[in-house]
């Protein structure tokens, strides 16, 4: 049932990838995406693939879990591949009806698919090895300088962590309400699209009411403990860069430089 859905997709572990500072991991992911978009040839793509493989190996995340993450975007991947395959101008290899398959098309399609797949897998690696709380914490610190231009960074991070915190609670609640309405003969599985949409009302109304009630209670509880936003607030777990963070970032810098140089020479 609903309980089986994994959200946040965090797999607890004790690998180097888990132990790295969340800020390092967020930075790495951003740099990784940059590298991916700079790569233009088999050589530089090879380096990025190698990079991802190293990341997966170090994190101890099952490659199967990463591949499973691709399922929801399978359609987009196929669609992009088809578009690139059929609409890239160049040396024609085969043609039928209004479509032409070109040599360049095959290459672009291949690289596009590779790029999207690697992009998704790389970002999944981040969420698989970083707990949602660590992730928001890291984001908040990284975006800290934006406070100077009046961006409410702390508040945004707080909203994010509260939202993440309540996902499992609301899933459980939905499960309960669904069971209760089913016990009164509600039918969610058959009927026309319109009937099914209508069948959701008995779930959504109680769910929203309970979500508002919880929000209200949480607000009061926070108020009672004198919460007043970010200014002057200290943290229980202060993020500190370790030697390993510097080492990993430095190593990554070298790889990025290599890929950029290769790209410069058109490789």
């Amino acid at each position, binding site marked *: 049932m609903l309980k089986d859905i994994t959200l946040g997709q965090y797999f607890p572990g004790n690998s180097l990838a888990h132990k790295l500072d969340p800020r390092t991991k967020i930075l790495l992911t951003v740099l990784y995406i940059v590298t991916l978009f700079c790569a233009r040839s088999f050589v530089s793509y090879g380096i990025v693939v190698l990079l991802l493989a190293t990341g997966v190996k170090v994190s101890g995340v099952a490659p199967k879990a990463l591949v499973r993450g691709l399922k929801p975007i399978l359609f987009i991947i196929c669609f992009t591949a088809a578009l690139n395959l059929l609409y890239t101008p160049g040396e024609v290899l085969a043609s039928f009806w209004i479509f032409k398959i070109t040599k360049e098309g095959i290459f672009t399609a291949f690289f596009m698919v590779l790029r999207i797949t690697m992009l998704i897998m790389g970002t999944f690696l981040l969420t698989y090895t970083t707990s949602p709380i660590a992730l928001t914490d890291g984001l908040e610190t990284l975006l800290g300088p934006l406070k100077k231009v009046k961006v409410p960074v702390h508040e945004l991070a707080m909203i994010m962590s509260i939202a993440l915190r309540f996902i499992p609670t609301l899933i459980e609640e939905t499960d309960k309400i669904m069971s209760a*309405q089913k016990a009164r003969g509600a039918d969610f599985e058959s009927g026309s699209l319109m009937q099914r949409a209508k069948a959701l009302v008995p779930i959504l109304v109680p769910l929203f*009411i309970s979500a508002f009630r919880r929000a209200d209670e949480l607000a009061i509880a926070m108020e009672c403990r004198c919460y007043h936003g970010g200014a002057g607030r200290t943290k229980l777990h202060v993020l500190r860069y370790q030697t390993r963070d510097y080492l990993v970032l430095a190593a990554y810098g070298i790889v990025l430089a290599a890929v950029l140089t290769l790209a410069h020479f058109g490789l």
Partner: protein
Amino acid sequence: MKPIIRVENLTHTYGVNTPFCRSAVDHVNMEIMEGEFLGIIGHTGSGKSTLIQHLNGLLKPTSGRILLGEEDIWADPKKIRSVRFRVGLVFQYPEYQLFEETVYKDVAFGPKNMGLDEKEIDRRVRSALAFSGLGEELLDKSPFDLSGGQKRRVAIAGVIAMEPEVLILDEPSAGLDPAGRRSMLENIRNYHKEKGTTVVMVSHSMDEVAENVDRIAVLANAGVVMSGTPHQVFSRAQELLDVGLNVPQVTQVAMELKRQGLAIDPAVYTVADLRAALCKLRGGKA
């Protein structure tokens, strides 16, 4: 009396193929007799809620069968909805599932799903509200304007209105004040008496169960450890205490009196019984 529901070798395992794999009910066998008032007691996590959700087909057994009448309820999975009309289940804190604009519409939700005609729905809504102790003046009110206790009664009426052969209530009095508790239980007792249908009440309050039901099933460690009349069950008070349950306060008093040397049967479970036993001890009449 013949059984209306038979549970045969029921096992339900949560999280199969994960590290969190755990059987909430494990090879349970039990019978619910036609027309009886059965109490199911057990502490938190003893599998009560999992068990009752099998009785109307909300959960599918990992192994084992549930027989309603003589039929396996999962014989034809397409007909599972009709099982839910025959076995009405009221969840814990049912007031959180109200959703309609008026009390009337909310109570009519179940009967409407059964495909009954307007006249029959109207009759059932009014009769269900009466059974759960609500006045007709509430019919056109929004259920969200009612008090907590009234909301719960509306939710219970919503299940009673389906006129199920078996009514199952999961902790119907949880979170109510003492007066609310008493009147809620009285309504359920009256419903059972007047309708003559089977009622199953899940609770972890021993006193509540002791005073109301015909028969008790005790759940512990994912299985039924005892079942019988209140007298039979509470005469094994020590075993109840051993599985982490309490015995009614009256029974506790009697047990203590016996321990201090009075020749009293400790298996009393209502105030009237204790009074009678004490009077007999003094040689007088009850």
